[in-house]
Protein backbone atom coordinates (compact mmCIF):
# COMPACT_ATOMS: atom_id res chain seq x y z
CA UNK A 1 0.00 0.00 0.00
CA UNK A 2 1.56 3.21 -1.22
CA UNK A 3 1.38 6.28 1.02
CA UNK A 4 -0.34 9.43 -0.16
CA UNK A 5 1.83 11.88 -2.13
CA UNK A 6 2.50 15.36 -0.79
CA UNK A 7 2.32 18.64 -2.68
CA UNK A 8 4.94 21.36 -2.52
CA UNK A 9 5.03 24.80 -4.10
CA UNK A 10 8.25 24.98 -6.11
CA UNK A 11 9.60 28.49 -6.76
CA UNK A 12 12.46 29.27 -9.14
CA UNK A 13 14.47 32.46 -9.51
CA UNK A 14 17.08 34.02 -11.73
CA UNK A 15 19.08 31.54 -13.82
CA UNK A 16 17.20 28.57 -12.32
CA UNK A 17 13.94 30.03 -13.61
CA UNK A 18 15.48 30.50 -17.07
CA UNK A 19 16.81 26.92 -17.12
CA UNK A 20 13.50 25.41 -16.07
CA UNK A 21 11.31 27.66 -18.18
CA UNK A 22 8.86 28.36 -15.35
CA UNK A 23 8.90 30.32 -12.11
CA UNK A 24 6.39 28.55 -9.90
CA UNK A 25 4.65 25.19 -9.94
CA UNK A 26 2.79 22.87 -7.59
CA UNK A 27 4.65 19.55 -7.57
CA UNK A 28 3.49 16.22 -6.15
CA UNK A 29 6.30 14.22 -4.59
CA UNK A 30 6.46 11.05 -2.50
CA UNK A 31 6.19 11.51 1.25
CA UNK A 32 9.51 11.47 3.11
CA UNK A 33 11.14 13.24 0.14
CA UNK A 34 14.19 15.31 0.96
CA UNK A 35 14.92 18.79 -0.36
CA UNK A 36 17.29 17.41 -3.00
CA UNK A 37 14.25 15.79 -4.62
CA UNK A 38 13.39 19.11 -6.26
CA UNK A 39 16.77 19.17 -8.00
CA UNK A 40 16.24 15.64 -9.27
CA UNK A 41 12.81 16.72 -10.47
CA UNK A 42 14.27 19.76 -12.23
CA UNK A 43 17.06 17.73 -13.87
CA UNK A 44 14.34 15.89 -15.76
CA UNK A 45 13.34 19.20 -17.34
CA UNK A 46 16.86 20.32 -18.09
CA UNK A 47 20.00 18.22 -17.53
CA UNK A 48 21.95 21.43 -16.78
CA UNK A 49 20.37 21.34 -13.32
CA UNK A 50 22.51 18.28 -12.65
CA UNK A 51 25.70 20.18 -13.58
CA UNK A 52 24.68 23.26 -11.60
CA UNK A 53 23.58 21.31 -8.60
CA UNK A 54 26.43 22.19 -6.25
CA UNK A 55 25.85 25.91 -6.68
CA UNK A 56 22.11 25.84 -6.05
CA UNK A 57 20.79 26.32 -2.54
CA UNK A 58 17.36 25.26 -1.38
CA UNK A 59 15.13 27.31 0.91
CA UNK A 60 12.10 25.72 2.52
CA UNK A 61 9.51 28.16 3.80
CA UNK A 62 12.09 30.93 3.35
CA UNK A 63 14.88 29.27 5.35
CA UNK A 64 18.01 27.81 3.78
CA UNK A 65 18.15 24.04 4.36
CA UNK A 66 20.61 21.28 3.48
CA UNK A 67 20.00 18.65 0.82
CA UNK A 68 18.64 16.13 3.37
CA UNK A 69 15.92 18.34 4.82
CA UNK A 70 12.60 16.46 4.98
CA UNK A 71 9.80 18.07 2.97
CA UNK A 72 6.22 18.32 4.14
CA UNK A 73 2.90 18.83 2.41
CA UNK A 74 2.35 22.52 1.66
CA UNK A 75 6.02 23.51 1.90
CA UNK A 76 7.21 26.41 -0.24
CA UNK A 77 10.48 25.16 -1.73
CA UNK A 78 12.67 27.71 -3.51
CA UNK A 79 15.71 27.04 -5.66
CA UNK A 80 18.26 29.77 -4.93
CA UNK A 81 21.07 30.27 -7.48
CA UNK A 82 24.16 32.19 -6.32
CA UNK A 83 22.85 35.53 -5.09
CA UNK A 84 24.22 38.78 -6.50
CA UNK A 85 22.46 41.58 -4.67
CA UNK A 86 24.19 44.69 -3.39
Amino acid at each position, binding site marked *: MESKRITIRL*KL*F*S*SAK*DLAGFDERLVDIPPDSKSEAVLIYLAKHNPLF*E*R*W*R*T*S*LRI*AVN*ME*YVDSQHLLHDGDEV*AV*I*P*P*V*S*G*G
Partner: protein
Amino acid sequence: MNDITPDPIDVLAVVDSVKAHAAGGIDIFIGTTRDHSKGKKVVSLEYEAYVPMAMKSMTELENKARQRWNLHEINIVHRIGKVAVGEPSVVIAVSSAHRDDAFQACRFLIDQLKLVVPIWKREYFADGSVEWSMQTHEQPVTHESPQAHP
Protein backbone atom coordinates in the same frame (compact mmCIF):
# COMPACT_ATOMS: atom_id res chain seq x y z
CA MET B 1 12.56 49.37 8.76
CA ASN B 2 14.19 47.87 5.62
CA ASP B 3 12.60 47.76 2.19
CA ILE B 4 12.76 46.22 -1.23
CA THR B 5 11.43 48.67 -3.79
CA PRO B 6 11.09 49.12 -7.54
CA ASP B 7 11.42 52.91 -7.09
CA PRO B 8 14.66 54.90 -7.11
CA ILE B 9 16.12 54.93 -3.60
CA ASP B 10 15.80 58.27 -1.80
CA VAL B 11 19.23 58.32 -0.14
CA LEU B 12 18.42 61.31 2.05
CA ALA B 13 15.23 59.67 3.33
CA VAL B 14 17.24 56.56 4.28
CA VAL B 15 19.79 58.70 6.12
CA ASP B 16 17.06 60.66 7.89
CA SER B 17 15.33 57.43 8.92
CA VAL B 18 18.29 56.42 11.12
CA LYS B 19 18.94 59.85 12.63
CA ALA B 20 18.38 59.91 16.35
CA HIS B 21 19.04 62.85 18.64
CA ALA B 22 21.20 60.57 20.73
CA ALA B 23 23.24 59.57 17.69
CA GLY B 24 26.93 60.31 17.44
CA GLY B 25 27.59 58.79 14.07
CA ILE B 26 25.93 57.36 10.99
CA ASP B 27 27.66 55.12 8.50
CA ILE B 28 26.04 54.67 5.12
CA PHE B 29 26.96 52.31 2.33
CA ILE B 30 25.64 52.98 -1.15
CA GLY B 31 26.09 50.35 -3.83
CA THR B 32 25.91 51.88 -7.28
CA THR B 33 25.56 49.93 -10.48
CA ARG B 34 28.76 49.76 -12.49
CA ASP B 35 29.28 50.71 -16.10
CA HIS B 36 31.48 47.70 -16.83
CA SER B 37 31.60 44.01 -15.95
CA LYS B 38 33.81 41.22 -17.28
CA GLY B 39 35.46 43.78 -19.54
CA LYS B 40 32.18 44.64 -21.25
CA LYS B 41 30.20 47.87 -21.14
CA VAL B 42 27.00 47.59 -19.08
CA VAL B 43 24.08 49.72 -20.23
CA SER B 44 21.58 48.80 -17.55
CA LEU B 45 20.83 46.29 -14.81
CA GLU B 46 17.85 44.52 -13.47
CA TYR B 47 17.44 43.11 -9.98
CA GLU B 48 15.10 40.26 -9.11
CA ALA B 49 14.31 39.26 -5.54
CA TYR B 50 12.49 36.49 -3.73
CA VAL B 51 10.86 39.38 -1.93
CA PRO B 52 9.34 37.84 1.23
CA MET B 53 12.45 35.74 1.93
CA ALA B 54 14.74 38.69 1.14
CA MET B 55 12.83 40.88 3.61
CA LYS B 56 12.99 38.12 6.23
CA SER B 57 16.69 37.65 5.57
CA MET B 58 17.40 41.39 5.93
CA THR B 59 15.51 41.44 9.23
CA GLU B 60 17.60 38.50 10.44
CA LEU B 61 20.79 40.33 9.47
CA GLU B 62 19.55 43.43 11.30
CA ASN B 63 18.89 41.34 14.42
CA LYS B 64 22.36 39.77 14.24
CA ALA B 65 23.95 43.21 13.91
CA ARG B 66 22.00 44.50 16.90
CA GLN B 67 23.20 41.55 18.97
CA ARG B 68 26.85 42.18 18.09
CA TRP B 69 27.00 45.98 18.25
CA ASN B 70 25.36 48.78 20.17
CA LEU B 71 23.22 50.47 17.54
CA HIS B 72 20.45 53.04 17.38
CA GLU B 73 18.80 52.46 14.00
CA ILE B 74 19.32 50.35 10.90
CA ASN B 75 17.74 50.77 7.49
CA ILE B 76 18.51 48.48 4.56
CA VAL B 77 16.87 49.37 1.24
CA HIS B 78 17.43 47.34 -1.92
CA ARG B 79 16.06 48.25 -5.29
CA ILE B 80 14.58 45.74 -7.75
CA GLY B 81 13.64 45.99 -11.40
CA LYS B 82 15.58 48.02 -13.98
CA VAL B 83 18.29 50.28 -12.58
CA ALA B 84 20.22 52.72 -14.74
CA VAL B 85 24.02 52.71 -14.55
CA GLY B 86 25.25 54.92 -11.70
CA GLU B 87 22.03 54.74 -9.69
CA PRO B 88 22.04 53.22 -6.19
CA SER B 89 20.98 49.58 -6.07
CA VAL B 90 21.34 49.31 -2.30
CA VAL B 91 21.58 51.77 0.58
CA ILE B 92 22.39 50.69 4.13
CA ALA B 93 22.40 53.24 6.96
CA VAL B 94 23.37 52.52 10.56
CA SER B 95 23.43 54.98 13.45
CA SER B 96 25.19 54.47 16.78
CA ALA B 97 26.53 56.43 19.72
CA HIS B 98 30.08 55.38 18.84
CA ARG B 99 31.21 55.37 15.24
CA ASP B 100 33.08 52.09 15.55
CA ASP B 101 29.79 50.25 15.98
CA ALA B 102 28.19 51.95 12.98
CA PHE B 103 31.16 51.23 10.70
CA GLN B 104 31.46 47.59 11.70
CA ALA B 105 27.74 46.89 11.54
CA CYS B 106 27.33 48.59 8.15
CA ARG B 107 30.22 46.57 6.75
CA PHE B 108 28.80 43.36 8.20
CA LEU B 109 25.37 44.08 6.71
CA ILE B 110 26.54 44.68 3.14
CA ASP B 111 28.93 41.70 3.25
CA GLN B 112 26.22 39.38 4.55
CA LEU B 113 23.57 40.81 2.24
CA LYS B 114 25.76 39.88 -0.73
CA LEU B 115 26.15 36.34 0.60
CA VAL B 116 22.70 35.33 1.76
CA VAL B 117 19.86 37.66 0.75
CA PRO B 118 18.02 36.14 -2.25
CA ILE B 119 18.44 38.96 -4.76
CA TRP B 120 19.89 38.55 -8.24
CA LYS B 121 21.41 40.99 -10.68
CA ARG B 122 21.02 40.71 -14.44
CA GLU B 123 23.38 42.75 -16.56
CA TYR B 124 22.44 44.15 -19.96
CA PHE B 125 25.57 44.72 -22.02
CA ALA B 126 26.19 47.19 -24.82
CA ASP B 127 26.84 44.26 -27.19
CA GLY B 128 23.26 43.08 -26.67
CA SER B 129 24.07 40.18 -24.36
CA VAL B 130 22.26 39.66 -21.08
CA GLU B 131 23.63 37.70 -18.14
CA TRP B 132 22.73 36.84 -14.60
CA SER B 133 25.65 38.04 -12.52
CA MET B 134 27.60 35.29 -10.75
CA GLN B 135 30.17 35.82 -8.07
CA THR B 136 33.57 34.84 -9.42
CA HIS B 137 34.07 32.36 -6.55
CA GLU B 138 30.80 30.66 -7.32
CA GLN B 139 31.03 29.76 -10.98
CA PRO B 140 28.91 26.64 -10.95
CA VAL B 141 29.94 24.95 -14.18
CA THR B 142 33.70 25.28 -13.88
CA HIS B 143 33.88 24.56 -10.14
CA GLU B 144 31.60 21.55 -10.32
CA SER B 145 32.53 18.83 -7.88
CA PRO B 146 32.04 15.23 -9.16
CA GLN B 147 31.55 13.86 -5.63
CA ALA B 148 28.35 15.83 -5.33
CA HIS B 149 26.73 13.69 -8.02
CA PRO B 150 25.74 10.42 -6.39
